């Protein structure tokens, strides 16, 4: 397959991107099988062992009610990855539908679609997400919807620009002449050409979607305690920072930073690869 060959070639030239890709695969694996690997129950409290420093027994220490922080971080991986991937997937579906139609048909369809996109972009996006979760109710599902809505403009714009640019291209005309209807041309001939740029946009916004969701639960929207989630774990540890119990907030925060950092590195690497391929 061409894509696999391109990836293989790209990874050989850019080992850092290969390493981050490997790390992300490992994190996904951890999200899937992590709960079977941990020795502790993430919800089991143990007040005799509250706020213990990291030790051999619990490598990230315990929190204010004696729960094992390491186990909670591992369990949270699944939830955090689920929120980010489903939000981004939703945003891609809605955003590319909006962007394709706007870019392909132009005219008033384009104007209305872009008005919607511009209106979303006129909000500070985190504030909008905050308002949406507050309005729809605090739940994981609504964090996903809110994060998806604030991500839609990026995909809509990317796809619209790509489609607009190729709308008059020769291969589109050829497809039309051979009797394909407008929607068919759009779906089978034009849209696939936007996939590389969509992939880049996806890895670049995935990390941001994760930060967004974690910040929502940090300010107390969405996920409720005692559910383990990185943002809420940092929030629970925030009060202990000024009294010196650093490990309660540090480890979940580090987990979040590491995953987002590797997503961003992968996004940069992929973008360079695709740019290089398009230039060739």
């Amino acid at each position: 397959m061409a894509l696999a060959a391109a990836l293989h070639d790209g990874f050989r030239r850019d080992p850092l991107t290969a390493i981050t890709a490997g790390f992300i695969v490992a994190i996904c694996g951890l999200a899937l099988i992590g709960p079977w690997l941990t020795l502790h129950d993430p919800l089991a409290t143990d007040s005799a062992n509250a706020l213990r420093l990291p030790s051999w027994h619990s490598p990230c220490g315990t929190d204010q009610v004696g729960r094992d922080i390491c186990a909670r971080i591992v369990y949270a991986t699944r939830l955090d990855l689920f929120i980010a991937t489903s939000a981004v997937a939703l945003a891609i579906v809605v955003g590319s539908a909006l962007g394709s139609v706007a870019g392909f048909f132009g005219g008033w369809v384009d104007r209305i679609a872009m008005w919607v996109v511009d209106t979303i972009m006129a909000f500070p996006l985190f504030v909008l997400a905050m308002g949406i979760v507050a309005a729809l109710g605090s739940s994981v599902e609504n964090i996903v919807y809110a994060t998806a809505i604030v991500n839609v403009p990026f995909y809509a714009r990317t796809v619209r620009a790509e489609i607009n640019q190729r709308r008059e291209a020769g291969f589109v005309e050829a497809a039309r002449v051979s009797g394909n209807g407008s929607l068919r041309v759009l779906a089978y001939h034009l849209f696939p050409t936007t996939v590389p740029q969509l992939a880049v946009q996806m890895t670049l916004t995935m990390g941001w979607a994760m930060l967004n969701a974690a910040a929502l639960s940090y300010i107390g929207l969405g996920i409720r305690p005692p559910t383990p989630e990185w943002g809420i774990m940092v929030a629970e540890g925030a009060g202990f920072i000024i009294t010196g119990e650093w490990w309660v907030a540090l480890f979940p925060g580090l987990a979040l930073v590491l995953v987002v950092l590797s997503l961003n590195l992968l996004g940069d690497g992929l973008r360079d690869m695709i740019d290089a391929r398009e230039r060739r």
Partner: protein
Amino acid sequence: MAPLLWTILRRLVLGLPTLFGVVVVSFSLTRLLPGDPAVYFAGAAPTPEAIADLRRTLLLDRPLPQQFAAYLGDLLHGDLGRSLVTGQPVLQDLSTRFPATLELTLTAIALALLIAIPLGVAGAMRKRSGIDHIARMVSTTALSMPSFFTGLLLVFVFYYLLGVAPAPLGRLAPMGFPPPEHTGFMIVDAILSRDWAACRDAAAHLVLPALALAIAAVGPLTRVTRSAMLAVLSSDFIRAARAYDLPRWKLVYAYALRNAMLPVLTTAGVVFSFLISANVVVEKVFSWPGIGSYALEALVASDYAAVQGFVLAVATLYVLINIAIDILYGIVDVRVRLGG
């Protein structure tokens, strides 16, 4: 001056449909908020009559289009409604708290530019060198840090470990007397009234939250500075300037950087809106009494008017900032002729 005024007017008109969209969205969002504010504010043991009464005063018994029309009418009179939590007009609440947010955000943008421009320029001047890789690592890491976590890390290191920063609790020490208010910017006010102790205290309280915010902005600003500088450095007029043997500093700072500032300015506008978002979180970490923490309190209490006022104020500000940037373009780059 006339063409400049004309441009400002035209940009304002172009911003109107977007602003209308913002009003519609913020209105419909806050009407969906769970919880009935009439019940919330009727007190501990509400009688049905009291609730019905409150619903009438709050216009909650009218159909939605009527509520929206009333809201629009009030907006046109500059009336954002009354906050149910503080009992004050929302516009007054926002304007007393806004200087704290503005002080924080402007300091953060200034700090971010101070970090990002040298990094980006250095990266572009010596492409693929050690400093370029460091700049890239710094910007990617900064981009991956949630600002609440950055804030907590800064508090831990500078307050708990080193003991050089004050406790993250607001703009002044608990026993500190705020200087008489002129501008609302605590530091400026302290300087105006020659209260040096308050000035030092306010600056000490400002540094960490501003740095936490700034780090969130360093990533995009460094990248855009680097790529804009690269584009400018490879352009013909720089080659010509090199051929004339202009001094290197003049070439880089007077010619190249000035031209590279355009995309940096655009990004600074986007970053500003992003920082207003990040503000909400950072203000919570540092108990900063700005509009972000006001909005959070309002959200928790389903205080319709206050949330709408905050969202509207921030979105309006964002549109205005973009207009300001368009106008700044004309000053930085004479090729953009305003109103032409």
